[in-house]
């Protein structure tokens, strides 16, 4: 009985609270505190270890997130891809490799922030909490790849339906009942990070500069708007 309520709290209530917070607060913050949307780069203060920490982390995490999104959005295609063994192996090894790259980068980021006195000055408590959450999340993710292999298959069959059920507002946690605690932890923490997202430096993800590649090189702003355009 208790277990039931606990599961309902963790996998139904918490996701909705986190998603609601995410959407409400990112929009609110963008409207009221748009100045605070920044990647808050510390490359200027410490430029020697920056490359070896930040670059592996970003390339790693981006690939891993794209992998999760693929499993979430096109599970059938993914399962079709996995139907041939060597293709499954390629996918799994790639996922694990980028997971480990993320972990190495994240550890690098944390060590760099902890050891450089200048960078420590621009690192807040929120940053440390976030790094802690990300570290646990990446460690649990990599552990799953090692302990419960063929994640690209069972994610698509068990987790994708759950995630869609959340999105469709008819949550169904029966898919999760049999999951090991490691995977449950990964799921809960994922939602917590999403909920925490608007209060952290992570918001820079939402302002990636996509128009740059298409715009003209020079930008001119006119006050006499409507009279003339630059």
């Amino acid at each position, binding site marked *: 009985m208790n277990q039931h309520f606990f599961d309902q709290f963790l996998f139904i209530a918490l996701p909705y609270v986190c998603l609601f917070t995410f959407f409400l607060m990112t929009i609110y913050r963008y409207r009221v505190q748009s100045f*605070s949307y920044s990647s808050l780069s510390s*490359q200027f203060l410490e430029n020697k270890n920056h490359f070896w920490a930040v670059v592996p982390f970003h390339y790693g995490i981006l690939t891993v997130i794209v992998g999760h999104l693929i499993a979430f959005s096109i599970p059938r295609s993914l399962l079709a891809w996995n139907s041939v063994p060597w293709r499954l192996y390629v996918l799994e090894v790639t996922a694990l490799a980028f997971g480990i790259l993320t972990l190495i980068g994240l550890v690098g980021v944390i060590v760099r922030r902890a050891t450089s006195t200048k960078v420590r000055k621009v690192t807040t408590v929120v940053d440390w909490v976030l790094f802690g959450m990300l570290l646990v999340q990446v460690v649990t993710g990599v552990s799953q790849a090692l302990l419960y292999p063929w994640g690209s298959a069972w994610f698509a069959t068990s987790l994708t339906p759950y995630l869609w059920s959340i999105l469709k507002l008819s949550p169904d946690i029966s898919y999760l009942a049999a999951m090991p605690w490691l995977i449950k932890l990964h799921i809960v923490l994922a939602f917590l990070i999403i909920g925490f997202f608007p209060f952290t430096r992570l918001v820079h993800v939402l302002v990636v*500069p996509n128009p740059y590649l298409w*715009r003209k090189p*020079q930008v*001119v702003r*006119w006050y*006499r*708007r409507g009279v*003339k355009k630059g």
Partner: protein
Amino acid sequence: MNIRSQVSMVFHLDKCIGCHTCSIACKNVWTDRKGAEYMWWNNVETKPGTGYPTKWEDQDQYHGGWEKKGDRPINIRSTGKARVVPNIFHNPYMPSMDDYYEPWTYDYQNLFNAKEGADQPIAKPISMITGEDIKVEAGPNWDDDLGGSPIYAANDPNLEGLTEEQRLQLSSVERLVFFYLPRICNHCLNPCCVASCPSGALYKRGEDGIVLIDQKRCRAWRSCVAACPYKKTYFNWFTGKSEKCILCYPRLETGQAPACFHSCVGRIRYLGVLLYDADRIEEVANLPDDQLVEGQRSLILNPFDPEIIRKAQSAGIPDGVIESAQRSPVYKFVMEWKLALPPHIEYRTLPMLFYVPPMSPVMADVNGDLANHAMDGLFHSIDAARVPMQYLANLLGAGNEGAVRYALGKQLAVRWHRRAETVGDIDRATADRYLREANCTIEEADEIYRLTSLCTFEDRFVIPPMYREQAIEMIREPHEQKAETGFGFVGGPRRGL
């Protein structure tokens, strides 16, 4: 033809005394804040020297500006469009604080709170970043007045192309020479910082050409810092936003000269409007190195030409601005007299701050204890000047001596002419010969003399009307604007959340 107006500047290097008053005025008004301590939107460098940040002119190190390879169109040398995405996490050419200096203050409290001891207490230098003890090893004017010149001046990138003998002469005690180079943002016509910003946060104001960074759109991708070859965009390490010289636009809009201009002790600074043809910027920025100086001049339009005036009016430039362009001292220095030259135009950003090259010290012919003025001329030939022509050409002529020689020759001619007029120990014919050689008339020489030596505030700063009151009406409800006393809702620049 697409006529625009640009608030432009001339710095007369022959008048700069290197007092740093401009830097202090700017620092007090704009950058005396957390995160901006190390920034000097206006700084004054000793030349030869490595400047601030150290060796900023060495683009093999900083990769600033535009690069031209063969016949292909120019491209941003640091991170252009193709390279910005893979390099967005770590900018490969981002200077770090070590390239500038770590700002410091002194622990003055120790003078009051130190325990009683055998020695006098001292105020130790402490870092303004970490608050910890710091060994001060660099500063914004570390090589001021040639301090440490064997290390600093000897590494000046402008020494390229100078013979070994010239380099030795520059640093030999008997011929030691230096001049000052005050620097602010050049508010370029083809700004590399603007073109490099992934967020589109940097922009050039259409009405006056001032280059600004939208603080709310800057996301700290740091591209502008790497891209600006003059290193005049700075990264605020605390707010996580880039900042730069704003040409004191709040002062300009109320008819006052920028703080650095206003406070200039040597009165070296001139400000005025230039009209230019924006349609030809791209074409000019792609010209070969030796045509860039002339090319940039060809962009600037004659504000007295009725045809230009008509087109400027139809382009929406107010009559007040056109009238201001006609009185612009910058137009005289750059276009009529051709005395002022753009710095390092080979970076191809088309800077709109121009420098009048400095004359080297006036020397008497010393023979033993006798100072003999009856040498071939009263003034040195510009070729015998202590600062080699090639050095100035590297700084102000993209390596070509022609334009620099012309500007120095004309300044020399003005001196001969004024000497003949005021002292009279030179015959008129000699002065006229120099004027003729320098392509200068007596009227022009007198005008140069007046604007150089006797210039008033109103002569130096011809600030165009900016019509901001009309501009505001187009984009805001006047009553609302009035209720907010014109500031809008002001929030302090907080870091993150």
